[in-house]
């Protein structure tokens, strides 16, 4: 952690860490502690008086069926996004690992959606599935299916899932491909000599060996779906219709900024913080183990 050889004592290191620490204190630690504090308060509708109520806000949340619904929705949403984008990316990576000609070209053509902002991904998909004009709506219409995500909650959910998963394929593809290319070729060759075909080799050798990558990606995809998809939900559905796509992050924003329920919003923030802490710990424990392997 520290260098064996280092500089002698002086005030310099404090000056060096100062910018980072000051920003962390003002914009991270202080607001987070404020959220903790506010989650224990109830403010009246006009903001005139506040009352300290211990865990009343949390109790209210846990008995609130809307919050429970948002929780369930977020979990369904996150795992659908992770499964869809990881499944697609894994198949693509397996193919790209196999072909020799043009592997780099394929990679270039597949990784750029990483750079597209979630909001823009949302805008593209909402355009293609616009209930009156969308090109996919038209195609579905010619099969006799009427798509309208502004009325149908399940369709709205599907739309948000597609837009989120589309953007994430690039990222998963890159890591899966890197994982597969790190597998020693001799292992694969030995299996081929023993008569295992490509599918069998994938199931018994490649997939088990990249399982650390898969697990790591699962955690990161869940984090992505939990927090970074706010932009997609906000542009595509605004949590609607009838709260069908209201995920936790959107609810915090909506209750706090639009509904002005400060205590309730702060309590939700605290719960989200706990979720991030758990996910970060899982991610870091996994990284520790990966270091031991290699």
């Amino acid at each position, binding site marked *: 952690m520290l260098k064996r050889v280092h500089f002698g004592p002086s005030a310099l290191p404090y000056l060096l860490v100062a910018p980072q620490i000051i920003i962390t204190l003002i914009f991270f630690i202080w607001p*987070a502690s404020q959220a903790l504090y506010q989650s224990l308060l109830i403010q009246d509708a006009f903001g005139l008086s506040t009352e300290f109520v211990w865990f009343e806000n949390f109790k209210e949340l846990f008995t609130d069926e809307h919050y429970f619904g948002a929780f369930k929705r977020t979990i369904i949403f996150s795992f659908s996004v992770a499964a869809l984008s990881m499944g697609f990316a894994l198949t693509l990576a397996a193919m790209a690992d196999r072909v020799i000609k043009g592997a780099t070209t394929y990679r270039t053509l597949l990784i750029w959606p990483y750079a597209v902002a979630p909001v823009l991904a949302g805008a593209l998909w909402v355009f293609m599935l616009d209930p009156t004009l969308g090109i996919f709506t038209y195609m579905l219409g010619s099969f006799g299916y009427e798509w309208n995500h502004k009325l149908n909650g399940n369709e709205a959910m599907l739309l948000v899932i597609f837009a989120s998963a589309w953007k994430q394929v690039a990222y998963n593809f890159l890591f899966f491909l890197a994982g597969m290319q790190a597998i020693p070729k001799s292992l694969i060759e030995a299996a081929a000599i023993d008569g295992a075909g490509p599918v069998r080799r994938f199931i018994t050798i490649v997939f088990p060996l990249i399982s650390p990558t898969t697990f790591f990606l699962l955690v990161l995809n869940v984090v992505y779906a939990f927090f970074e998809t706010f932009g997609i939900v906000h542009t595509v559905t605004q949590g609607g219709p009838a709260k069908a796509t209201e995920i936790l992050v959107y609810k915090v924003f909506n209750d706090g900024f639009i509904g002005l329920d400060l205590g309730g919003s702060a309590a939700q923030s605290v719960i989200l913080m706990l979720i991030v802490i758990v996910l970060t710990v899982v991610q870091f424990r996994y990284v520790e183990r990966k270091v031991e392997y290699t």
Partner: protein
Amino acid sequence: MIENRPIITFLSHLFLIFGILIIAFPIWITFVAATHDAVRMVQIPLPLLPGDQFFENLKETLTRGMKGASAPPVGFMLLNSLIMAMMIAVGKIAISLLSAFAIVYFRFPFRMAFFWMIFITLMLPVEVRILPTFEVVANLGMLNSYWGLSIPLIASATATFMFRQVFLTIPDELLEAARIDGAGPLRFFRDILIPLSRTNIAALFVILFIYGWNQYLWPLLITTDQSMYTVVMGIKQMLDAAEQSPDWHLIMMTSLLAMLPPVLVVVLMQSLFVKGLTETEK
């Protein structure tokens, strides 16, 4: 090549091309929509092949923006996005280099406390502390300013960790040699550490530029003045206006312009991008 199975190889290529088409289709539709005029964009079915209005749309979007949408011309928003993304990327790299340097090369009281304090920021994304952070920025009078857009986002645990990792691989002999030659800490930092971590800085810059450019929630909260809108949040204003008058050709042109800079960065600096991504995420 382990074995020669032309059919499977052919199928692999076929599937990859199919995958690329699926991934690229939304962008193709966006591009096509940006090349038609308003009249064509309300006729069902919408076109699948490009029209001839690309430059007209480009000019109109850049200079005038969209009628009915409460957003400034897109050229202006692109500039705001660029300034914000540059400030975030440069700021994060600068303060992370400094703090990693202090943590690796100095022994001082509270060193580990500072390290953990930086680590904690990983666990506090903007999304979970929306309201209180907004209050802090409002109290500091930083609403509707470039400082307000960038400073609260530039604390970075991942960048600090990455530079710490890089510094730890630099041989101790270099520091010993530098000290024998009479170089002080700042001289050592400037003439040895910075040049040695140049590729890492570049790789990180690529990732952070994309991160900064694509910020949405934060600018949405703290900018109420149209002159501070970034292009990524401008899209949202346009979509809202599209409920009344769907000027999809202009919205899609703006989307195209908004995704162009980060996509170009990824494609042109691919190896740096891959390096940055794999190094910051572990």
